[in-house]
């Protein structure tokens, strides 16, 4: 398991290759990349900056990955989340999960993203034509995380 919070960009292909290398039991890699969009809630976005809570953020991400590993038969997971200044089309976050079969890999990957969105202390501040604004938390993200509680 690896969890990284960094300013630098990441190389998706290299990260996924490193994650799976040396394990011929892996049959499936599900991954997700989040990107900065040039629009949000109808307004143009020229860029954003991402703040986090050093220490707690890494701990929260590690806990989310541990929970995914308890819940599904997966081999490994990687989470990379960038902080600092980003512009549209920049990569923000990578979540990748390896497993023997696709069902578990997909579910664990989506679970990690949903909990990251609601539990990991990151905050986005967007630059729009009307000035900078802190992004509001979305109720739909709470709902997405909440559905994993269902029996």
């Amino acid at each position, binding site marked *: 398991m690896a969890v990284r919070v960094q300013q630098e960009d990441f190389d998706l292909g290299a990260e996924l290759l490193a994650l799976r290398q040396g394990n011929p039991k892996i049959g499936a890699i599900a991954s997700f990349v*989040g990107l900065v969009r040039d629009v949000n809630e109808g307004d143009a976005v020229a860029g954003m900056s*991402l*703040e*986090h*809570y050093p*220490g*707690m953020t890494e*701990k*929260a991400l590690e806990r989310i990955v541990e929970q995914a590993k308890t819940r599904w038969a997966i081999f490994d997971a990687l989470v990379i*989340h960038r902080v600092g200044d980003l512009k549209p089309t920049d990569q*923000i*976050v990578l979540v990748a999960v390896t497993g023997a079969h696709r069902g578990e890999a997909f579910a664990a990957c989506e679970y990690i*993203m949903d909990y*990251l*969105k*609601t*539990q*990991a*202390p*990151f*905050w*986005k*501040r967007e630059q729009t034509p009307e000035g900078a604004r*802190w*992004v*509001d*938390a*979305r109720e739909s*993200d709470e709902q997405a995380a909440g559905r994993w509680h269902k029996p």
Partner: protein
Amino acid sequence: MITLLYFARLREALGVSSEQIDQPADVRHVAGLTAWLRQRGGAWERELAEGRAFRVAVNQDMADGTTVIGDGDEIAIFPPVTGG
């Protein structure tokens, strides 16, 4: 001593990113601490009012009003998270 940290919109609204204070004598839980901070008035009263959306972590774990606070704790107050 307890350490208080503030992040993102709350950090800006309160004008402080961290402070160290003596644990107030009658404050034993998160709810007591936020009530005590509200007594500072102004932005504190407004931003930490009941019903406002803010989160509290104690020693880097998400907490709620009933979470116990002790000497040496690191307590962070911040808006709902918006990463990913």
